[in-house]
């Protein structure tokens, strides 16, 4: 078991290493380098840098080293928390990211909670009341939820909220709280606003998970072990919750990592459309402005989140299913 967990972690680390290389290539991708960009910025201000001066910067920054040395330098800096410098914000990338990260994490976490807390009970309901009006209604809503792209959904909600409540659903804070430092009050304010992007981000996933839960539970309900459990004299409700529902949860749990990927890849666009103070708009701007250290760092952060999510979902599944747990032990 422990061995297996370690194995998974090692493979997650390997995955991260590969991804970091991709992120690094991304950083290197735009024509010119940091020194050129620096010179360009300077010249806009009227100061002219000589070729020697630029070369000097290159030397200082190690930009003349072979690519793999540069990668190692960048990676080891990254591990130590030095993500490079953001040209756009004139601050270390780590500071910029750190400022936005809590909001993104909260948003992602809340969306996951929303997705599963709605999807699991609804999936159970639909399976137990197959073909009832409620089942059909939920299916219909689900199709709509799956069909509407997130940005469209966000726009619709923004429009509706300004028409009906006269307030903007954009952003995450009331104007008073906008620039206030983090406090309990500010957190509560965020919670009051965050549900809008959570709903936008979570609806498609929720619809999908309802369908998964419904289909697997319907499948499980027909299995012999359910009848065998009923034959013990257990109450019907208890039978359902203890056996088939428990079984049907496994595929739902195993999609956790994948669901997280969906949410994370959907988040930037929703963040931009709803002008949230999270990493989304930051990511878009960094790409537009070729602020590549920031972009690379953000890609890494997103990847780390996804890999962590997958790792957690694998471990959860091992915890839930003895067959997987023991298969893992033997392997």
């Amino acid at each position: 078991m422990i061995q297996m967990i370690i194995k998974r972690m090692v493979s997650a680390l390997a995955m991260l290493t590969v991804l970091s290389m991709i992120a690094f290539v991304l950083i290197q991708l735009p024509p010119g380098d940091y020194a050129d960009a620096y010179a360009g910025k300077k010249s806009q201000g009227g100061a002219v840098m000589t070729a020697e001066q630029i070369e000097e910067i290159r030397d200082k920054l190690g930009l003349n080293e072979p690519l793999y040395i540069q990668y190692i330098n960048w990676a080891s800096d990254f591990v130590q928390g030095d993500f490079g410098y953001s040209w756009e914000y004139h601050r270390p990338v780590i500071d910029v990211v750190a400022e936005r990260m809590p909001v993104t994490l909260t948003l992602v976490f809340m969306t996951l909670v929303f997705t599963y807390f709605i999807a699991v009970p609804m999936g159970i309901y639909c399976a137990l009341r197959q073909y009832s009006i409620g089942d059909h209604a939920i299916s219909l809503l689900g199709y709509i939820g799956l069909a509407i792209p997130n940005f469209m959904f966000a726009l619709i909600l923004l429009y509706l909220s300004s028409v009906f409540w006269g307030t903007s659903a954009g952003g995450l804070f009331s104007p008073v709280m906008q620039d206030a430092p983090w406090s309990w009050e500010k957190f509560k304010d965020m919670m009051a606003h965050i549900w809008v992007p959570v709903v936008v981000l979570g609806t498609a996933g929720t619809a999908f998970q309802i369908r998964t839960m419904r289909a697997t539970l319907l499948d499980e309900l027909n299995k012999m072990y359910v009848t065998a459990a009923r034959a013990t004299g257990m109450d019907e409700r208890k039978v359902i919750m203890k056996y088939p529902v428990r079984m049907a949860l496994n595929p739902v749990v195993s999609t956790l990592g994948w669901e997280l990927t969906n949410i994370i890849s959907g988040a930037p666009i929703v963040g931009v459309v709803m002008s949230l103070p999270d990493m989304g708009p930051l990511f878009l701007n960094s790409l537009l402005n070729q602020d590549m250290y920031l972009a690379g760092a953000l890609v890494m952060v997103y990847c780390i989140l996804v890999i962590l999510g997958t790792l957690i979902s694998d471990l959860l599944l091992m915890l839930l299913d003895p067959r997987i747990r023991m298969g893992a032990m033997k392997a």
Partner: protein
Amino acid sequence: MNQNELLRVEELHISLQMDKGSLPVVNGISFGLKKGQILALVGESGCGKSVTSLSLMRLLGKGLEISGGQILFRHPESGDVTDIAALGSNDKAMRKLRGDQIAMIFQEPMSSFSPLHTIGEQIMEVVRLHRKVSKLDARKRAIELLDKVGIADPAQAVDRYPHEFSGGQRQRAMIARALACDPSVLVADEPTTALDVTIQAQILKLLKDLQQEMGMAIIFITHDLGLVAQMADEVAIMYMGNVVEHGATRAIFKQPQHPYTKRLLQAIPRLGVIQDKLQSIEGSVPNLFERPVGCAFNTRCTEQQRDACQQRLPALRAIEPLGLVAQQGTAAVVSNDVGVVNSSDVIHSVACHLIHTEAVA
């Protein structure tokens, strides 16, 4: 209901509910089960054996409903009689009987346990549902039961998961689970069909031994008449949701009356007899939508049929004593030859127009 009967199924009808009306699956079946006896329900696939056995515990699947008749159960201690057919499937009274008085083992040992819970937990659960015992005592009981059904090293096995058991071991564990509360009736629905032959023999022997030791009555369901001789005291032959012949095992094997029973007996592969091809019964069971009018067997019956065969469903009736049946049909003459007077207290009855020409309306 006789005094010595634990269970009496009387004119039980079960039908499949569909958008356009309902379809009879079990069509007025009747049989009784005596204390401590093994009754075999035998018939080809699809004749309603599983549906009948599930209905005894009100565990019928979606769409199937009891549409008439009674299932009377006599509580062995108090003597109270309950009509199970009149209870709701999740009623407390029904749940109190299930697992405690009436227990069941199924055809598929591979899937009758939840793969996510240990064997022990699933046995302890039944014990704790019906007996006020501590977790520790329930566990002790589970270990004891596993030992009883011949699981090696039961103290270890109790914490294992179903996937760590072989098919035979799982069926043993299933038997342990069913016997956890000392039921008075055990329904065994083709308990060995999914197992290979040597394991099959072991499981049957185990069932028989446990029956002798614990004294429960067993309804043993099978499509294999060959297994019946060694297992059952009484046999009920089923065809399309009816009992067509019922009697003591010896009587059924020695003096089969119903054309269907005879054909089933001929189809048993015999040791030492080289057969050109495995004999099986010609034709196939009509599907539920094409239930024949009159006797359900009339599409396959090769006897000289009578008009009544196409008109009325023959009732299950005791074979008349000598003399009365003598002048009727060939089947009756055969029975006359071997002297069908019921040797045991089990009444031999048959549902066939050849045997009971209706003197009475």
